[in-house]
């Protein structure tokens, strides 16, 4: 289990009374803890996951622009094909998977 509270700025410690709502989700079958309302990209990066997809020639790709215009951070969420991880807000129980690009013919 990856606890993503270590790479954070200014969050209350997880065991304090006023801690922000932590939720768990899955990435490629691995359980990860993040914070409700943050972007899926933030939760993945905080958990040390930098690659979320492969490109048409099989290169690893990850978060790049953070504002929804580059489409590098796309993942499959709950079976839905391409969702930008930086624009999707994390919800408890989300099933997030890498997107493999169609191979370049």
């Amino acid at each position, binding site marked *: 289990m990856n606890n993503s509270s270590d790479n954070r*700025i200014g969050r209350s410690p997880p065991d304090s009374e006023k801690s922000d709502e932590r939720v768990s989700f899955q990435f490629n079958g691995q359980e990860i803890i993040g914070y409700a309302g943050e972007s899926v990209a933030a939760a993945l990066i905080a958990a040390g996951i930098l690659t979320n997809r492969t490109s048409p020639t099989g*290169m690893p*790709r990850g978060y790049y622009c*953070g*504002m*929804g215009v580059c489409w590098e951070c796309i993942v499959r969420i709950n079976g839905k094909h391409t969702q930008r991880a930086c624009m999707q807000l994390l919800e408890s129980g989300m099933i997030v998977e890498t997107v493999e690009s169609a191979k370049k013919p």
Partner: protein
Amino acid sequence: MTIEEVDVAVIGAGAAGLSAAGEAAKLGARVALVDDNHYPGGQYFRQPSPQNYKHQNSTSSKDTERFSALLADIDTTLVDYRPGATVWDINAPLTLGLADGKRSCRIRASAIVIAAGARDYVVPFPGWTLPGVITAGGLQNLIKGMGVVPATPVVVAGSGPLILVAAANLVSAGIDVAAVVEATNRPWGIVREAGKLIRDRSNLQLAIKYLRRLHKANIPVLRGYGVIAANGSVCLKSVDIAPINRDGKFERSKTRQITAKTMVIGMGLTPSLELARLIGVDEISLPLRGGSNIVTDEKLMTSVQGVFAAGDGASIGGVELSLVEGRIAGIHAAIHAGMSVSKQAESTLSRDLSKHKSLCKFRTGLEQIFRNNVDWTDLLTPETIICRCEDVTLDELNQCKAKGWTSPLQLKAATRIGMGRCQGRNCLGTLAALTANPTSDAETYRAMPRTRQPARPILLSDLLHEKLADPELPNDPHLPRRRD
């Protein structure tokens, strides 16, 4: 077919959009404020999610105050604020098409303000697609918006004042910055010279403050250097930097390597022009910095009647200019939509017009400071990815050119460059540079693929929420079809 009618439609809820919407509402206009983010603020006022989030970001109290004021101004029944809505179409007469996953509709306005903001200006280099290489905007969203620390050590590289901002923010957040690598190699005396041109010293003081912060933290600031490669196989491991000589070329014999797990690359910004291009406004290209700006008059109206443009989405100028322009455009848009100008609006306008002048001077000064003669195409190797979405390398483009496919459209057809999800945002600028007409910027632009709907990718099912009467199959008299 229902089309919603408003007085003023504002596209973008960043600094310029929020100001515009607020001022228009003050004059009594019914405003639709459309933004594709879930929270207002755009890039500069990028804010954390409201749920229980107590992180201390580096927002100054001044920024917190004026952001609150902006939000207060749009908190009126006159403003219909629609977050999470993508404007995918804009057409005459002054009609937007938008969809937000629950609704799909058109909005017709008497005046439109395009405040679509900017995005990072892209310069490819070997290894730029490695996980761990992120843009300056991407870093800001991570730290400011989400309170997440990027993997360390971090190298900040590029050109322009924004990378100083990025580095300073990292330092404030307690993050290990291995080096700041900035391309400008002009002497600091220029800063003083520029300072003489500027009346509004607040921004300049901020820039100096950032530098002081970096010096205090003993961060090496390497000026006149650039990153020539990002290294790693599954993710970033190190970056190679080299000094830039007087001719703007990289001196590879003096390459140094710096260990890094994150590289923040900032090459400045460029306006997001897709909607402006769809409606057909006049643009002006900028040889000094590349890209182009929207041409506007003193009311910030574009060449299309009733379409105004403000902020970084019209021309890069930073937050101060965006706020001023937002107000000017919002007031004039409301007047264009038939609202009467108030005394307060008149005095806002006169104050803002003189502020606008001095801020533009500051911008020119800043551009002078950070001007460099670097030949960024000198970085490219045959293996460098030019189109990230379709994995088109420089070598592939050169091979197609050798086959006689030399125009941008032919290269697009042969390699699929520009046809991926980012709709060419990360590659068409480079394609233009690689196929540029040496004598005419206008010709270069004309040869490029046209902007088409959707202005941003839109989920097909999001369009199906539109309330349209079913056509009478097979021959609906109102719907001409292909004759079979």
